[in-house]
């Protein structure tokens, strides 16, 4: 059984580090939340730009792999094995959520998309994006669905 996409990196991170990252998220959220309203908008946009651990690992992998192949071609053929090992770990990461750089990047506080979204959507809620959705009086109205999606998608 393959682990869930959204939670697989957290599941493979030591729990104290997950907790530490949660504190980082809480601190960052608190700083952004007390800003002026227009600065909250900026904070939400910055969070959309933030490099999550998936993107960081991908860049790291592509570069390491290109270097390995270049060294294999020009220095020593055995470097190809280095690329092959890195690629094997990339498959492992895609499927299981773990590869050797994961513990390093997690200790450097690279967050998963879910952890970044936690902060981003908490700010959106605070901004009042969902204020018109939660009214229990309007439950059962299918238009609420579209309204909720639009609210969630608002930048």
């Amino acid at each position, binding site marked *: 059984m393959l682990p869930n996409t959204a939670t697989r990196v957290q599941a493979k991170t030591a729990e104290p580090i997950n907790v530490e990252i949660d504190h980082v998220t809480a601190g960052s959220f608190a700083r952004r939340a007390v800003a002026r309203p227009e600065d909250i908008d900026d904070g939400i946009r910055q969070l959309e730009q933030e490099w999550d651990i998936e993107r960081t690992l991908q860049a790291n992998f*592509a570069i390491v792999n290109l270097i390995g*192949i270049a060294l294999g071609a020009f220095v020593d053929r055995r470097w*190809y094995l280095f*690329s092959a090992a890195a690629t094997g770990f990339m498959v492992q990461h895609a499927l299981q959520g773990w590869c050797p750089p994961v513990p390093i990047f997690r200790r450097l506080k690279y967050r998963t998309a*879910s952890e970044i*979204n936690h902060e981003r*959507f908490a700010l*959106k809620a605070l901004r009042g994006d969902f204020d018109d959705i939660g009214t229990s009086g309007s439950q059962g109205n299918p238009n609420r669905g579209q309204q909720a999606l639009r609210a969630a998608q608002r930048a």
Partner: protein
Amino acid sequence: MVASTVRRVPEHTSPAVNARLQSEAEARLAYYAVHPHEIEQRLRELDAEWDVERAIETEAASTILLGLGLGWAVDRRWFLLPVFASAMLLLHNLNGAYPLLSLFRRLGLRTQGEIAAERYALKALRGDFERVRKGGQAGESRLWEAFEAARPHAP
């Protein structure tokens, strides 16, 4: 130019496919607006959903391994395949474009950003953010109410 983590894939998807993914999400939200007791099950499905990054990582790594194997065992010109695949992965990483992106998008693979929009729209429908509404409690407690309400995954 380095593209936004959240937007880089939709920006390189044809408008027709983006519109289709959007209308499918709207139809689901309309359904869950009138079937709120099924929302929890749907949130679990969203956690498991394969996103486009996981698909690209699996595909790119497989292509690279294949090229390395053929380059090692058959003809060294095959090493151009992993070079090309790694370069494309780096292109995708920085800019968002990818040779197989339109195929993956047509197959319905979404980004974590798109999945998160559906997740938080469902959470709003469920009433997760009701206590965060403006005009209710003010100050610090509303802030932490928002932070807790925005937790992306059930423990």
